């Protein structure tokens, strides 16, 4: 099969999986979960085939339909797309295994809706990853928002509804108010919305307009959680942990930063932005987000909320690195998408495991839990170290490249931000690890417990392992990204 056919397969599989789950299997719980696993496996395989075809140098494109005269829903492949798609589909497999343990462990309701929406969300993520123009990106970006709404409101209590409301309102508001006008404006200025390396906007565009447009994109892609449009992330923590893990650590948030990186490289072009000094404003915004988010995370008592704010900060690492516009920083940005995904999903998995095993949700309750759940807390430690950026974890690799990128320009602001945030990350993560392993429990739990159900432990161990492995095996990714970055200059 040609690369293009695999691409079409990858785009269609999640929806077919969703249909399968609805139509045939809502009455057989076991089959439902197997369908989910099957779909994620098939998806990952297809994306892998696309990667292989791409590496062979095949041109891979697909076109769905012409929506407006001159504007179609179209797809292409390039290094970033494949990266994102592989990441999302691969981690979906792990999350499916995890979900089995989670849903069974808590005896959750509405599981069909859960799995179906999950599948559609992943389908949307694929659409975003492989989008060949801004229109296609926008369409699937919105589908992602809508498909994840029922997942956030899943528990159906007042808290979940409120959280889902905030989630939806912020994402849709930013999409409609910032992103859509930005896209239409781009169309009016450039005459096309296709992604082209080096940008599609006219070179002589007024610098003020350039910055304005860029700002609209950065704020419009609110899934990247740059402040002040970040509040949806902590609000979304009312969702079940598998949702928080895959979607709000991997699919949704990475879709946001992916969109920004894609826009910077393929709509504006690093050269053009490099000549606009006012672009620094957005660098400062990203830097501010990193530090502010870390400070807020410091003050959180709920585990998931702390992780949410940590995510906000980590995402802005990617935005910061992208906007610094040096070759190393661009590579660092791409690497961080992967590194953060591995680390964060591990952390969320552990949070969910702790909840299922002991019903604990607050950081203060974690004293001594390392003895009861050693595997889980070790994974937590690995994820935390990756967030801080300590070798031998994935986080170290990406941070290294970002720092190198900053040095290319002697960018002291960025270096300060990086140093400060590393310190702050350590400040809120290390105490947790310490308390878990080296302190006694306040009181023994009502029901003595060990590790969480085995599917959950298997999942979080896998992702922790990936976090470690990426430290050692990141060559191919670096090569892929360097190729891209080289071509874009």
């Amino acid at each position, binding site marked *: 099969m040609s690369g293009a056919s695999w691409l079409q397969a990858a785009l269609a599989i999640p929806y077919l999986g969703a249909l399968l789950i609805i139509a045939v299997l809502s009455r057989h719980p076991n089959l439902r979960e197997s369908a989910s696993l099957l779909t994620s496996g098939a998806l990952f395989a297809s994306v892998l085939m696309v990667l292989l075809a791409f590496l062979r140098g095949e041109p891979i494109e697909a076109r769905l*339909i012409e*929506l*407006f*005269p001159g504007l179609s829903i179209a797809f292409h492949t390039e290094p970033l797309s494949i990266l994102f798609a592989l990441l999302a589909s691969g981690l979906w497999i792990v999350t499916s295994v995890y979900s089995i343990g989670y849903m069974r462990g808590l005896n959750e309701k509405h599981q069909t809706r859960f799995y179906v929406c999950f599948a559609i969300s992943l389908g949307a993520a694929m659409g975003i990853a492989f989008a060949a123009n801004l*229109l296609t990106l*926008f*369409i699937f970006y*919105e*589908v992602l928002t*809508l498909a994840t709404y*029922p997942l956030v*409101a899943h528990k*159906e209590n007042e808290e*979940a*509804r409120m959280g*889902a*409301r905030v989630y*939806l*309102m912020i994402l*849709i*508001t930013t999409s*409609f*108010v910032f992103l*859509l*006008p930005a896209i*239409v*404006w781009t*169309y*009016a200025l450039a005459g096309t919305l296709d992604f082209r390396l080096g940008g599609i906007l006219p070179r002589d565009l007024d610098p003020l307009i350039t910055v304005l447009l860029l700002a609209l994109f950065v704020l419009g892609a609110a899934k990247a959680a740059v402040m002040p449009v970040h509040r949806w992330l902590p609000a979304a923590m009312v969702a079940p942990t598998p949702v928080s893990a895959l979607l709000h650590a991997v699919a949704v948030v990475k879709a946001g930063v992916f969109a920004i990186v894609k826009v910077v490289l393929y709509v504006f072009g690093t050269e053009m932005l490099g000549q606009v000094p006012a672009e620094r404003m957005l660098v400062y915004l990203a830097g501010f987000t990193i530090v502010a988010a870390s400070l807020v995370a410091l003050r959180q008592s709920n585990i998931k909320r702390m992780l949410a704010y940590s995510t906000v900060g980590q995402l802005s690492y990617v935005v910061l690195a992208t906007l610094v516009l040096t070759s190393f920083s661009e590579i660092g940005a791409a690497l961080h998408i992967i590194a953060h995904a591995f680390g964060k999903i591990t952390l969320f998995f552990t949070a969910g495991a702790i909840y299922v095993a002991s019903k604990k949700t607050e950081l203060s309750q974690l004293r001594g839990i390392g003895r009861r759940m050693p595997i889980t807390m070790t994974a937590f430690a690995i994820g935390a170290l990756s967030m801080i950026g300590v070798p031998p974890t994935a986080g170290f690799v990406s941070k290294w490249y970002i720092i190198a990128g900053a040095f290319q320009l002697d960018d002291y602001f960025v270096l300060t931000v990086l140093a400060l945030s590393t310190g702050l990350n350590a400040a809120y993560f290390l105490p947790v690890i310490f308390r878990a392993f080296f302190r006694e429990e306040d009181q023994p739990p009502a029901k003595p417990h060990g590790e969480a159900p085995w599917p959950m432990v298997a999942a979080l161990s896998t992702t922790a392992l990936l976090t470690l492995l990426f430290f050692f095996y990141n060559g191919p990714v670096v090569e892929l990204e360097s190729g891209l970055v080289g071509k874009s200059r």
Partner: protein
Amino acid sequence: MIAHNLVALPVVLPLLAAAVAVLLPPGRKPWLLATGIAWLVFAASLALALRALGGEVLSYPMGGWEPPWGIEYRLDAANALLMVLIGAVAAAVFPFAGPSVKRELGEEKSPLFYAALLLFLAGQLGIAVTGDAFNVFVFLEISSLASYTLVASGKDRKALTAAFSYLIIGTVGATFYLIGIGLLYALTGTLNMADLAARIPEVAETRAAHTAFAFIVVGLCMKIALFPLHLWLPNAYTYAPSAVTALLAASSTKVAVYLLIRFVYGIFGADFSYREMPLAWLLIPLAVVGLLSTSLVAIGQNKVKRMLAYSSVAQIGYMVLGIGMASSLGLAAALLHVFNHALMKGALFMALGALVYRVGTSRLHQWRGIGRRMPWTMAAFVAAGLSLIGVPLTVGFVSKWYLVLAAIELGFWPIVAVIVIGSLLAVIYIGRVIEVAWFEKGESDERCEAPLSLLIPTWVLVIANFWFGIDTRLTVGLAELAAQSLGGTP
């Protein structure tokens, strides 16, 4: 013979069928007749639209009297789009009306009810297809009188007062229009639209021409329900039977918008309307205020039917905004939204009718958890609601895209903000319904889905929302063709 007279058939058939319906016994027969006619009319309008897509302008001299002395039926891209729309809406709503009206009103008055429905259809199509300004008035009155009757037939006693205020305001509007036409006739000696367009430039500077323009525009704005002349609409839509509301929402105001476009661009010409007369200064502020204020009011409503009525007024604001922008792209956007909004609101009101069929009311707190009891019906409501919000892959997005593009092209950034804020307000009021229906607990959990006879027509329109949101060749093609032929930029 049929091909030769195809242009007139969509008007003649329902007119005669109305008389036949009166003669039929109460029961199902009038409904079956009406539905059959609606489908025939839809087929005819599709055939005509396909010819118009090729750029052809079809002319039919009524009674064999040649224009400009005789009444001419004239079909170009703009009104071909409208005809297809009315035909499609009728073809979907009439089958829906059978069970819905039977549940809400009973069957004894059905001959008269369906006669009124058919007269309404004939009137709307007549307005769409005619090329004579006075003939427009005749059909305007036919369809309006029929619609007053239809609104008054609602079973709530308030339907009578709603119909009465609708009647008063509607008649005033039609009379203003008539006065305007009279003045134009005195000035130019003709009533044929194409002829008027040719003769008005000579008399453009007279006070009589300005007065005629003012009367016609204001009269039509009453029919359109442009803020602040919209006060008749919420009550009329709320108390009419559900099928009637669906039909009205999807056709009568759209036809009035088309008339406004025809007069402003086609007859008076963009030059006169925007340079000689300050039309943009009138339309844009009113559209903006109307859009925002009625969206806000919609959020506070407890009856979903009333909420959707206010939403309709807001959406009309979008259409008028497109017209007021006085550019070719803005005009195309307005025409697109005429078509798309009819699809959206038609589907929404039909889904509402199906929900009311089972629940008996459209009060939001009675709808708790209804998503689980009537999943298909509620899904239709949600899908149409998404279209209203403007989610990509729906017709709503297509309209929004063109409106924003038109505004950006002219550099009207505040208008972009207004358009976008309007969508957000729509998210709030539609979101409220979705939350209550799906994410709150109802009293029972047993399934009581709406009957297929209601679901199928509703879903046909819902699917049309997505179909035309993805395959935009027909709608965008006709809209752009129409915008060019009507002459956009002054």
